C-alpha cells in the first residue's frame, strides 16, 4: 500500500517532483564538480604555480651556512653532479617536476675587436634542457628552461642536448647592455689559463640578479672553472601540500615527531618532508624551501580550496531553500489529502515518513543524474582551466550523498512543521 501510494503520488505530482529533481540535479552537480575539482585540484593548481619557478633549493651544507650568514653567491663547497638524478628515486620523486643543477663561478669576459679585454663576470653553468633515462626506464626531460618560463628571450634558448650548442652561451640583459653585447656576437671567457670562445645565442631578461650573468651549459662551466662533476646548487620545482602544524613542527626538528607523526609527515608531500628526503640522497646537501614560492603556492591553493568549499556550501543552501519552497508548496497543495490520512488514523511520523520517502526517492533520482553531470562539469573545468583530467574521487559520492540528505532534510523542515500542525478538522471542513 505504501509503495502504491508513493508511486502514484510521484506520478500524480510529476511536474512538481521534476522541479525538485531538477533543483537537486543542479545542486548535486555543482557540489560534485566542486568537490572533485577541490580534491583533485591540488596538483593542478600546483602545476599552474610552477611558472613561479623552483620552490626548493639544494646547496652544500657548508655553503648554505655561508650563504645564509654572508649572502655570498659563490663559494668553494660543491655538490656532486652524479647525485642529481637520484632526486627522482625518493618517496616523493613523482612530485618532483623539474630540476636543474647550477654551477656558479667567476670568469674573465673579453670581447674580441673591442676595448674590453677583460672584465670579471659571474657565470652559471646548468642543464638548459636535459634528457635522461632513469634506472626505472622512465624518460626524463627537465632543465632550467622549464624553471624559467617567465624569461623574456631575445634570440634563442641554448639546447642542452645539442653538442654544437656548447659553443654558444646566453647573456643576462643587464650584462649585455653593460658590455654592449648582442645576439650573434662573439665573446671570450677565461679562467686560470683556460680560454674558450663563444657566440651569444640568446639574451634573457629575468627581471632580477640573474640578468648580470652569463649562462652556459653545465659541462662548459665545469671545464672553464676546472670543476668537473661539481655543482653549486640544485633548483627543484616540486608539487607540495600546504604546510600545517605537523609540517611546521617537523621542519624545525623531524626527530621531535612521534613514530606515527613521522610516518604521516614522511608520507605527505609537505615541502619539509620532500626536503628531508632530498637530503637523504644528495650527499652533503641541505635542501631549503624557497619560502616565498612555497608559501604563495600554499596560500593560493588554500584559497582556491576555500572558494570551492564556499561554492559547494552556497549551492547546497540554495538547493535547500528551493527544495524547501517546492516541498512546502506541494504539502500545502496536498493538505486535504494529508489531513484525511490523519483523520483515518495516521500518526504524524507516518505522514512525515510518507512525504520524506517521496522527496528522498526524487532526491535519489536527481542525485544520481546530478552526480554524473557533476563529473562531466569537473572534467570541463579540468580541461578548460588546468588542461588536465580531474581524477574522480570516490569519497565525493559519500560527501555528496551526505550533503544531499542534509539538504533534503533541511529543506523539508518547514513542510514537516506544517504537517505536524495540520489539523484534520480544518482541512476536511475546507477551512
Amino acid at each position, binding site marked *: 500500500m505504501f509503495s502504491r501510494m508513493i508511486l502514484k503520488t510521484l506520478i500524480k505530482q510529476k511536474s512538481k517532483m521534476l522541479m525538485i529533481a531538477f533543483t537537486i540535479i543542479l545542486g548535486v552537480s555543482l557540489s560534485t564538480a566542486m568537490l572533485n575539482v577541490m580534491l583533485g585540484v591540488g596538483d593542478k593548481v600546483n602545476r599552474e604555480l610552477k611558472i613561479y619557478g623552483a620552490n626548493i633549493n639544494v646547496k652544500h651544507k657548508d655553503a648554505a651556512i655561508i650563504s645564509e650568514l654572508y649572502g655570498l653567491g659563490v663559494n668553494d663547497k660543491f655538490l656532486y653532479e652524479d647525485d642529481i638524478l637520484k632526486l627522482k628515486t625518493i618517496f616523493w620523486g613523482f612530485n618532483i617536476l623539474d630540476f636543474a643543477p647550477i654551477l656558479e663561478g667567476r670568469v674573465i669576459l673579453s670581447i674580441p675587436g673591442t676595448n674590453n679585454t677583460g672584465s670579471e663576470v659571474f657565470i652559471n653553468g646548468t642543464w638548459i634542457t636535459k634528457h635522461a633515462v632513469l634506472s626505472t626506464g622512465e624518460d626524463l626531460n627537465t632543465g632550467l628552461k622549464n624553471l624559467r618560463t617567465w624569461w623574456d628571450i631575445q634570440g634563442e634558448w641554448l639546447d642542452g642536448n645539442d653538442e654544437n650548442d656548447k659553443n654558444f652561451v646566453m647573456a643576462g640583459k643587464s650584462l649585455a647592455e653593460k658590455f654592449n653585447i648582442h645576439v650573434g656576437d662573439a665573446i671570450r671567457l677565461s679562467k686560470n689559463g683556460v680560454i674558450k670562445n663563444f657566440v651569444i645565442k640568446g639574451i634573457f631578461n629575468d627581471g632580477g640578479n640573474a640578468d648580470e650573468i652569463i649562462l652556459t651549459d653545465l659541462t662548459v662551466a665545469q671545464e672553464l672553472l676546472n670543476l668537473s662533476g661539481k655543482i653549486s646548487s640544485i633548483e627543484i620545482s616540486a608539487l607540495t601540500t600546504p604546510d600545517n602544524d605537523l609540517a611546521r613542527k617537523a621542519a624545525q626538528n623531524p626527530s621531535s615527531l612521534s613514530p606515527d607523526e613521522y610516518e604521516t609527515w614522511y608520507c605527505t608531500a609537505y615541502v619539509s618532508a620532500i626536503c628531508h628526503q632530498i637530503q637523504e640522497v644528495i650527499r652533503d646537501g641541505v635542501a631549503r624551501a624557497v619560502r616565498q614560492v612555497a608559501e604563495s603556492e600554499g596560500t593560493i591553493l588554500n584559497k582556491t580550496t576555500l572558494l570551492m568549499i564556499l561554492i559547494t556550501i552556497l549551492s547546497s543552501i540554495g538547493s535547500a531553500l528551493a527544495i524547501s519552497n517546492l516541498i512546502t508548496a506541494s504539502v500545502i497543495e496536498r493538505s486535504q489529502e494529508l489531513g484525511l490520512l490523519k*483523520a483515518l488514523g495516521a500518526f504524524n511520523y507516518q505522514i512525515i515518513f510518507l512525504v520524506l520517502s517521496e522527496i528522498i526517492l526524487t532526491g535519489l533520482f536527481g542525485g544520481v543524474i546530478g552526480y554524473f553531470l557533476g563529473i562531466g562539469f569537473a572534467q570541463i573545468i579540468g580541461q578548460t582551466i588546468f588542461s588536465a583530467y580531474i581524477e574522480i574521487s570516490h569519497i565525493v559520492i559519500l560527501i555528496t550523498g551526505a550533503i544531499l540528505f542534509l539538504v533534503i532534510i533541511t529543506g523539508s523542515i518547514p513542510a514537516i512543521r506544517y504537517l505536524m500542525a495540520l489539523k484534520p478538522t480544518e482541512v476536511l*471542513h475546507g477551512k
Partner: protein
Amino acid sequence: MPILELKNVSKIYGSLKALNDINLSVNAGDWLSIMGPSGSGKTTMINIIGCMDTPSTGNVILDGVDISKESQSNLTRIRRDKIGLIFQQFHLINYLTAVENVMLAQYYHSMPDEQEALEALEKVGLKERAYHLPSQLSGGEQQRVCIARALINSPQILLGDEPTGNLDEENEKVVVDIFRRLHSEGVTIIIVTHDPEVGDVAQRKIILEHGRVIQDIDQRATFGEALKLKGA
C-alpha cells in the same frame, strides 16, 4: 451501557461558546441524528466525538474511557480503532482506485487486505466499480466508497458529517438504506445533517442551537418510516 457520554461539555473559542454545557448519552446500536442551523455547534460536536478535537471543559466518555484529556497521538489511536468517519465531500484520494481508498484505512489501522476491502465495497454495492478512480464514479458511488472505508476496520461508531449533503435524492436514499442495514447489524450511527428527512430516519434526533441541545426527540415510534415511504 452507553458507548458515548458527553458530560457538561463546552468548547470555547475566545469569547464564543461553540458548545455550551452539553450532556448527551448514546447507547451501543443507537442511531442518532444531530441537527441544527449553521453555527449551532454540530461540526464542533462531531469533531469532539470523532476524537479530532478536545472539549474546553467537561468529559467525553467513549467506550468507558474518558478521552477529553487525551494527547493528540492517543486520540489518533482511539479514532483509528473506534470511529468510522463519513464526510460530506467524500474526501477520497483521487489517484487511488476505490478499493485502494478503502485499503488506505486498513493500512493505517493494521494490514491492508484487498479481498476484505473488496467485500466492504460489495456491502455497499460497488464491487464491480472497485478498480475505478474517484473521478470515474458518481457522487453517490463516491459516498458509498467513503462508507466502505469507514466500515472496513469495524468501528464502534459510524460518524457522518452531512453524509448526504452532496447527493441527489436517489443517491440519498441509497445511502440511507445502507445506514439502515448497518444499524440492523448493530452498528452505532451518529449523523450530523441539515436534511430533516435524513434526520427523521434516525431513532433519536437532537436539535442544537447556539451550542446547546434545545430538543432531544425520541423517534423510535416512527423509526425507519420517513425515506422509506418517500422512496416507495
